[in-house]
Structure formats: structure tokens, C-alpha cells
């Protein structure tokens, strides 16, 4: 018995089809074996794929969204990965590379709203108790300082250390203007004043 699970959000529709994995003790209403999925993004081609493609999609889209949330536009997806995503001029570009030879990659432009819709559909799939397909979901993690380095322009990153060095140089110049104390001469011989007799 084929089962279907749909996730829709304005510009995005993700549909999973599969079968229950009764041998794993799952209920007959739970998708345990994925037979295919389709993804429709507003005004663009409807995409179809298997579990590996779905895994590749969520492996790049969710970490990319996580970085965007911190103001970092880090391209995701290796050269040989089936899916990649990167910042484009007015939004983002999702690139799908076919495993068929001589098939050029498909580039889909997404604006910020369409990216948010896609992320929401993937989030709902992750938390859907009716889907138990073994997928590896990346866990959101805080970014390291080195990963955030590109967020600030070079001038602002260098402003603090450069102003520190400048302040040190100014202070050193001012200190050098202070007159040096003259070497102390021979100490006068101590003369004891006689105490007045009374």
C-alpha cells in the first residue's frame, strides 16, 4: 500500500511517496521506505528524485539557511555533490546536477521568501512522526569565530587593532616629550642644628 506525505508552504510543495517498513515494526501508516519524492518550487520545474537526492538536498539547504541566519553566505555542496546552493545577486541559487552524462546542471534562482518556504517544508518533514525514512539531519550548531570572519568588512575588522596601535604610538610620542629628570647632584652634608637650650 503506497503512502503519500505532503508539505506545502506558499511557493514550495514537497511530496514523499513510500511504503511502510513492517519488518522494522513500524505502523502501516508510517513511511519507512521511500520510493520517490517530488519538489515543486513556484514557477520552476517540478523535480523528482530518490532518497539520495533528498538527503543531498537537506544536507546543503539546512546548513546554508543556518549560516544565512548568522549573516554568513557560505556556498554549500561540493563539486561532485548532486545539489549545491550559493548566494546569487538577488537571492540564492540552487543547483541540481544530474547523474546522467552530458546533462547540464539545472540552476534555480530562489528569493529570500522561497528559501524560507523550502526550509519550512524540510523542517516539517524532519518532525513528521508519519515519516521514518532513515535520513541524516544536520544539527544546527553555533558558528565559530573563523566562520563569522567574512560577516564584517575588512575595514571594520581592522579598525579595532589599528586604533589600538595608533593609540599606543600617540601615547609613546607624548611620553617621549616629557623632560627627563636631571641626574641628582652630590647630596649636601647633613648639618645638625644644635638644639636651643632652654
Amino acid at each position, binding site marked *: 500500500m503506497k503512502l503519500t506525505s505532503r508539505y506545502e508552504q*506558499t511557493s514550495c510543495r514537497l511530496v514523499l511517496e513510500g511504503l511502510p517498513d513492517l519488518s522494522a515494526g513500524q505502523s502501516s501508516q508510517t513511511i519507512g521506505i521511500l520510493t520517490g519524492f517530488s519538489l515543486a518550487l*513556484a514557477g520552476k520545474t517540478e523535480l523528482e528524485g530518490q532518497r539520495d537526492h533528498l538527503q543531498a538536498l537537506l544536507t546543503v539547504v*539546512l*546548513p546554508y*539557511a*543556518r549560516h*544565512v*541566519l*548568522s*549573516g554568513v553566505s557560505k556556498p554549500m555542496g561540493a563539486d561532485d555533490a548532486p545539489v549545491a546552493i550559493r548566494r546569487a545577486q*538577488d*537571492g540564492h541559487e540552487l543547483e541540481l546536477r544530474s547523474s546522467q552524462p552530458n546533462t547540464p546542471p539545472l540552476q534555480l534562482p530562489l*528569493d*529570500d*521568501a*522561497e*528559501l*524560507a*518556504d523550502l*526550509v*519550512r517544508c*524540510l*523542517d*516539517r518533514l*524532519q*518532525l513528521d512522526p508519519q515519516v521514518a525514512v532513515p535520513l541524516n539531519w*544536520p*544539527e*544546527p*550548531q*553555533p*558558528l*565559530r*569565530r573563523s566562520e*563569522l*570572519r567574512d*560577516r*564584517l568588512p575588512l575595514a571594520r575588522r581592522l579598525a579595532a587593532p589599528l586604533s589600538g596601535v595608533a593609540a599606543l604610538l600617540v601615547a609613546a610620542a607624548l611620553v617621549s616629550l616629557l623632560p627627563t629628570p636631571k641626574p641628582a647632584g652630590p647630596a649636601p652634608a647633613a648639618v645638625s642644628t644644635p638644639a636651643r637650650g632652654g
Partner: protein
Amino acid sequence: MADAPSHPQRVLSRRGLERLDLLLLCAEALDLNGGEAMVWLSEEMGLTDLFPNRVELWKRRCSNPLRRTTRRGLLSEAEADGLIRILNALADRLYPMLRSLLSSAEPPQLSEQRWALFRERLQELLQERFNPRRGGVQRLLDPQQGPELCRELIQTMALSAGPGGFARLKASLMDAAA
């Protein structure tokens, strides 16, 4: 993501507190009843132990160092989680509005009117409650830098909405200091 810190901090940094309170302020700028909605959602989500009333909720938000009247000290992990949950629920309620602001398919004139209204309300709230001498506030009020920063805030809210938004936003608020 495997190279994430092995011992992540548990409480929000000053920068994390600033961003969280700014995002809550954005929710108020988008929804005139945003302040009331926060109190109502807090009760709805069973957070009354953490925030028994609106004054306590307000006090936690005043941990933001950018505020005019700021409270010393950091939030506990449970308090920060509570505020992030409230923001997550607010962003979910406001998602259609956030989406229409971010969408390039909207008529440009209408979109610009919506952005102008949002920026005007946010500036009013910033001038009323935040310290205008702080660089972060000045950048938001700056006519050159302000619009871009406002867009970043709205995009952050859109990606913080929905079922996975809580974990994503919490991780982002715990980023290392840049």
C-alpha cells in the same frame, strides 16, 4: 557542521541578548499588539513559571545592553530558551507578513510601502526604548545602513519561524563573538 565547538556555551552572550531583544522588537513593529501577544503566548506555552507576568517578561528583555534602562547580568538558559520560544511562535504567526516583505514577486511599490511602514515603526520603538548613543542602535537608525540591517532582521525572523526555527535561532544566537 562537524567542526562546531565541542563545548558550546550554555547561556547567551551579550551579542546574543542584543539580537534576541531586537528580534522581539521587530515583532512588535510588525504587529501593534505584539507586546500583548508575547504575554499571551508565554501563558499559552506554559512559561508562567519563568515569566509570571508582563513585568517579569519585560525585565528579562531589559538584559539587553542596548536598552536605555538595562539590567546587569545574563539570562539563565531556561529564561533565554523561553524568550526564543516566544519569538519562534511570534515569527510563525507573522510568517505571511515576513514572507510578503521578503518576496520579490510582490509589486515593488507595495513592497516599498510595507518596508517603509515597518522601518518607521521600528525606529519609533528604538528611539523610545534603546540607548541612541550605542553604535548598534545608531547603525539601525542610519538611513544608509538601516534598511539593509532591517532586511537581515526580517530574514532572520523568517528562518526562525516554524518547527525547526527554535533550534536554528538558538544556535545562531550562541555564535562566537565576531
